[in-house]
């Protein structure tokens, strides 16, 4: 068959239309020539193929819109979904970490993440009301952390107490930045929040007396006093904080205790510059005051269990928290001598001894 096909092709090539064909394949070649009669130029299409062209291009345009637009939309939708998925995963990781870190305590792995999250939240809070509320919430968190550490019989070092002191001061400052209508309420809340924790902290610290804890207890009392006093005179508190004035003394021997004051005042240790005296040792049922700086005599260490700490590191009890920097207090008029027991001013602060050391100072300038 292949041979015949080749012969036929050969005969076709050798022949031409109109010429006689000979041989066994002549009839087939003539048939092929007859078919070639169809090869003339076909008549021009009636409408020159133009309607077909227009219809073709119009349909192409329509299909381009119908088929490619959804595809492009799908591509963008997929990209958007991918981006959203990544964001959701990242947020999930961040949120999960934040949740996991929320209950962490100083010294634990996630505590740094907790502090970082708090710093971010504080940095992103601009409204004075929100900022004050957040600062107070963080101060309460710091106090709760210290309480938790104490209850767990874990140590509270100077960094932890300093951080908590700084947060208390920050809450105090934030409250004074509210207007006169809102500031007293915020200060009252702060005062109450501190008061609620003072007793428990004091009790827990009584079992584990440490210098930073004692310092922090004094700071709690100082800030609470400031907040309480500021409720009636927010502007005065603002002025004191602005001027970097020290907090007014919290020890007011013989004075009437501020409503809401807890017995933690009895744990108040004198500042290094404070001259010890009878007036500075308020009667306290729970614990006597620590001995003054450098006077760790046995007679002044009534509780044996506290002796090693109070005598071993007496100066630590009077060292301000390292992370908090207060403005140096302006000495009261006439009290230029460190250690003077009373500022001879016309309006002494309710008989309280003047504190010239910044340890108890309530300056508003807290280092972040």
């Amino acid at each position, binding site marked *: 068959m292949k041979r015949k096909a080749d012969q*036929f092709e050969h005969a076709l090539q050798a022949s031409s239309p109109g010429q006689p064909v000979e041989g066994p394949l002549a009839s*087939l070649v003539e*048939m092929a020539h007859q*078919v*070639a009669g169809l090869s003339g*130029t076909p*008549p*021009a*299409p009636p409408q020159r193929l133009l309607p077909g*062209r227009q219809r073709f291009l119009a349909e192409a345009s329509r299909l381009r819109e119908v088929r490619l637009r959804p595809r492009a939309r799908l591509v963008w939708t997929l990209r958007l979904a991918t981006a959203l998925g990544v964001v959701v995963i990242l947020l999930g990781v961040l949120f999960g970490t934040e949740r996991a870190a929320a209950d962490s305590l100083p010294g634990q792995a996630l505590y740094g993440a907790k502090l970082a999250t708090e710093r971010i939240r504080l940095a992103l809070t601009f409204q004075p009301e929100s900022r004050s509320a957040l600062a107070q919430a963080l101060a309460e968190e710091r106090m709760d952390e210290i309480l938790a550490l104490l209850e767990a019989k874990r140590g509270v070092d100077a960094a932890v107490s300093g951080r908590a002191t700084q947060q208390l001061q920050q809450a105090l400052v934030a409250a004074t930045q509210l207007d006169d209508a809102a500031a007293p309420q915020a200060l009252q809340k702060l005062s109450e929040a501190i008061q609620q924790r003072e007793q428990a902290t004091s009790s827990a610290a009584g079992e584990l007396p440490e210098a930073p804890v004692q310092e922090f207890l004094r700071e709690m009392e100082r800030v609470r006093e400031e907040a309480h006093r500021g409720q009636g005179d927010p502007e005065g508190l603002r002025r004191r904080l602005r001027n970097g004035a020290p907090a007014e003394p919290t020890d007011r021997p013989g004075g009437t205790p501020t409503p809401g004051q807890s017995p933690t005042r009895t744990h108040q240790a004198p500042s290094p510059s404070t001259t010890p005296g009878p007036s500075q040792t308020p009667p306290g049922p729970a614990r006597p005051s620590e001995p003054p700086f450098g006077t760790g005599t046995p007679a002044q260490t009534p509780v044996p269990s506290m002796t090693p700490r109070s005598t071993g590191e007496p100066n630590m009890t009077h060292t301000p928290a390292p992370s908090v920097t207060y403005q140096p207090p302006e000495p009261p008029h006439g009290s230029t001598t460190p250690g003077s027991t009373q500022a001879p001013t016309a309006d002494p602060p309710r008989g309280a001894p003047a504190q010239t050391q910044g340890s108890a100072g309530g300056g508003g300038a807290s280092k972040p």
Partner: protein
Amino acid sequence: MTTSDEQVLERTQSYDAHALADVYDRYAAPIYGYLYRLLGEAAQAEDLTGEVFLRLLEVLGTRRAPRDRIGAWLYRVAHNLAMDQFRRQKKTPAIALDEDLVADGSQPADLVGDKITQQQLRAGIRRLTTDQQRVILLRFAEERPLAEVARMMGKSEGAIKTLQHRAVSRLRKLLGE
């Protein structure tokens, strides 16, 4: 297929207007001629030519789209459409009185006689197999070289030789009946 054709085909996948216009302008007239030789009806051939290109649009972007030889694809679709047309008519179409009958200077009687012969030829061709019809039309009516027909039909030249020999033999028998 040349590189240019490949590029054009690639652009048609995204319904590029210029590429599609290029395809139409390049292949519409040959497809029309092919259909005319098969159908013998200018208007019908023109309509089916438009239909061929619409079919192209339908398959673009799908697995049925032409991958390399767009011309071969168009001829195949044109042929199938013509066969569908024949099946719908179910009878030999009437002799068309087209422009040739009056435009040519030949005697009307001879023209009608030629026409009948051509209609007989077409009727015989339509009784062949699809491949035989295509090889007859491409090889003899359109006088395409063997190699080009082989390329268009996706077969070897030897296969085309065999196919055309069988097609002509069968056609001769059909017309001799």
